[in-house]
């Protein structure tokens, strides 16, 4: 075995901060905001929150004026990142997450900046 083989560790890929991912299946009960065609499962980073998911749905809808959306997973509104949701509910990122979206009724809350 050459020196190079010995010194060259295959495990060394650098400590890239890799975010984990999860598959989501988007759906809605409201025909007016339904996706034109079922996009199938979409792989997203688990660090996403409501706002990013809203951006995603608007992109899929190709809406000219973005519509704010809220997201429901297993009947509860997503108020954290997907990752925090999965952890809090003991769900592994190995499954496809069914995510339902509705129009946001309450306008986005702005925190006063001091």
């Amino acid at each position, binding site marked *: *075995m050459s020196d190079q083989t010995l010194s060259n560790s*295959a495990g060394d*890929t650098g400590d890239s901060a*890799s*975010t984990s*991912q999860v*598959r989501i299946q988007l759906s809605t009960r409201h025909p007016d905001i339904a996706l034109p065609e079922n996009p199938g*499962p979409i792989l997203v980073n688990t660090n996403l929150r409501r706002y990013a998911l809203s*951006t995603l749905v608007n992109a899929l809808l190709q809406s000219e004026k973005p519509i704010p959306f809220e997201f429901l997973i297993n009947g509860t509104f997503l108020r954290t990142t997907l990752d925090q949701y999965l952890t809090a509910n003991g769900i592994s990122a*190995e499954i496809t997450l069914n995510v339902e979206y509705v129009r946001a009724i309450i306008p986005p809350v702005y925190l006063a900046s001091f």
Partner: protein
Amino acid sequence: TTHIESIREQPPRSEEEARRLWSHYDDMTRNLSISLTEQLRLILAPTLATKMRGDFRTGKRLNMKRIIPYIASQYKRDKIWMRRSIPSKRNYQIMLAVDDSKSMGESGSGQLAFETLALVANSLTMLEAGEISVVGFGNEVKVAHDFGRPFTNEAGAQIVQHFTFQQTGTNVRELVAQSIMLFREARSKNINAGTDLWQLELIISDGLCEDHDSIRRLVRQAQEERIMIVFVIIDALVKGQSIMNMSQAMFDSDGGGVRIERYLDGFPFQYYLIVGDVRELPGVLAQALRQWFSEVVESG
């Protein structure tokens, strides 16, 4: 008919259960194994590598590239003939890496993975082409069968015991990194020293993995060490969830825009095939291997 309960409901299974499962998959894939063996026999036969090579004073065919230097050297450089090179004896180390993560159980891909494992392991054993190893991966990589140990029915049953498709992560990057290490070790222990050793890894998985950039780098490194990796994607049996329809959403770092790409467009493995039915496997696998072996023979 035999009734095999869904894999996902099985806790770590008993020896008896594992033996029953293995013999079930063994029976199921017997004819396919024979067909794959026959196809592989043709591909792996070392005679295929026979090429005419230069440079000799006598031989069978003229090496045209040597003619002009021959004349220019006033007929001094007279090694202008090629001979049929004697095919070097090759032996193989083939690693089957089976995805043991939960997504495999969720989609019902686990059964198909076992069928694939039985099919491929049995044909390679029939071929007597070399050593076989089996590893499982999920959160971590576990060796279920070492290189150098004969692959028997008993070994098959023991391997089945290792898999539950319950691991809560799919670390493909770690798998490739560990595989490179395992192949290095196996290369150093190879009993047929001096022969041409070919190392091949078949990853059997549903194809869902993250950290594509790191994986791509490792795959390149494996290639540099002459380790060939073929990714066999067991496609979801769940309707509408085929990996071919799956997309990936990528956000700009400022959170402003989003790009939606086809998942497979960013897939980090150069050689992959998609199988939805084990019966397709002998054909597609043989085709992929034929392509690879011919590329390696040409570059060698």
